[in-house]
């Protein structure tokens, strides 16, 4: 019997491509979804990304993801956005949760779903995801993903992502290490089957202290480049699993339709 959880972020699913790592069929299959909101050239946007994991063997729980690297399209205006005007230390986030961090440290929101096998049942777990800017990791920006699961296993955990420079078709790489999530002593690890998050202002509100009050505002998003490459804006994600297999998935946000008035 499968019991399902709730809420999954709605993503525009475009250009799906499933591709196991070269030379390795791998028992996991990955699909990657990406979108811009809004989807217009030269416009500050929110990047939406997500992935689904399936075991190649029907009815099996996939091996847990332990690493994910997401390459972002070249020319994205990450540095000209006003996301992450504050930082949240990981220790504060772990001890106090979101309430301990400034609102202007948030850079994205999302959801996750997971599975765990308990005897002959596969249980589903749902969680909310918040992305926050953490202190830099050396010379690189660090994003902290705060995941809060409620049922049937209540847990909160934090995993870091580092923004690394990239080149060629990609402007940067979000490199994350995902911890194993045990259920109970000697129990199975939870396997993430879908994960989605945004990087951008959609759904976020920052506050500015002016005189004796706090004024809400929305941060500036990540600018979409002025020119769209042939085939759309490319994303690429590489995954490593607990069983040491790897998989790669690519996706592309299609070039936006020309404005009817030529702008």
């Amino acid at each position, binding site marked *: 019997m499968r019991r399902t959880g709730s809420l999954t972020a709605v993503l525009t699913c475009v250009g799906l491509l499933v591709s196991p790592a070269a030379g390795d069929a791998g028992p996991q299959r990955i699909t990657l979804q990406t979108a811009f909101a809004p989807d217009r050239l*030269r416009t500050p946007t929110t990047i939406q990304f997500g992935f689904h994991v399936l075991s190649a063997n029907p009815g099996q729980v996939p091996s847990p993801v332990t690493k994910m690297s997401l390459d972002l399209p070249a020319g994205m205006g990450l540095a000209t956005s006003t996301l992450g005007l504050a930082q949240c230390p990981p220790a504060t986030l772990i001890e106090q949760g979101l309430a301990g961090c400034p609102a202007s440290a948030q850079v994205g929101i999302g959801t996750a779903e997971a599975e765990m096998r308990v005897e002959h049942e596969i249980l589903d777990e749902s969680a909310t995801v918040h992305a926050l800017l953490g202190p830099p990791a050396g010379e690189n920006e660090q994003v902290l993903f705060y995941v809060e699961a409620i049922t049937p296993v209540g847990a909160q955990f934090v995993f870091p992502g580092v923004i690394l420079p990239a080149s060629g078709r990609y*402007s940067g790489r979000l490199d994350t290490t995902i911890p194993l999530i045990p259920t109970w002593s000697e129990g199975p690890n939870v396997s993430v089957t879908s994960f989605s998050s945004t990087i951008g202002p959609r759904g976020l509100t920052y506050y500015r202290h002016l005189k004796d009050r706090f004024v809400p505002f929305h941060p500036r998003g990540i600018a979409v480049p002025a020119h769209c490459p042939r085939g759309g804006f490319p994303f690429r994600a590489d995954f490593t699993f607990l069983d040491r297999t790897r998989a790669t998935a690519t996706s592309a946000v299609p070039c936006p339709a020309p404005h009817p008035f030529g702008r």
Partner: protein
Amino acid sequence: MTLAILIPAATGTASVATPSGGAKPAARTARTVSLTETGRLHSTNGSGVTIDERGRATGTYDCAITVHLTILSANRVTAAFTVSPRGGTISGTGSARFVAKGANGYFGGTISIARGTGSYRHASGTNIGISGIIDRETFNLTVHVHGTIRV
């Protein structure tokens, strides 16, 4: 024949009056200038990975300045600049490390002079230090320049 040597203070260029009445450049004395500048600029266009800035520089020269910033990555920027002191322009390029911290971005690196016009057509200089702060919301930019140039 009377030899008349004129040495304008700004350029150090000497000219010699010839019997035919025409003047032609002769020996030119380049000057070394210890450059200290502070520029305050505002954005005229900022999108994607480029920001155009315009403002005033004060210090060794008081003049207009324009800067074209390109954000190469989350921690590296390049810049192309033009300053317009009286008598000409000086242009160049540079690169700097960039760190975003809170509401500001901080950068530090070096620039080099690529070319000059008018009185500064022989301008040169490398490894000129540059540092500054950019407001991430408004893109208002304060930049400090220090080094040695030859004009």
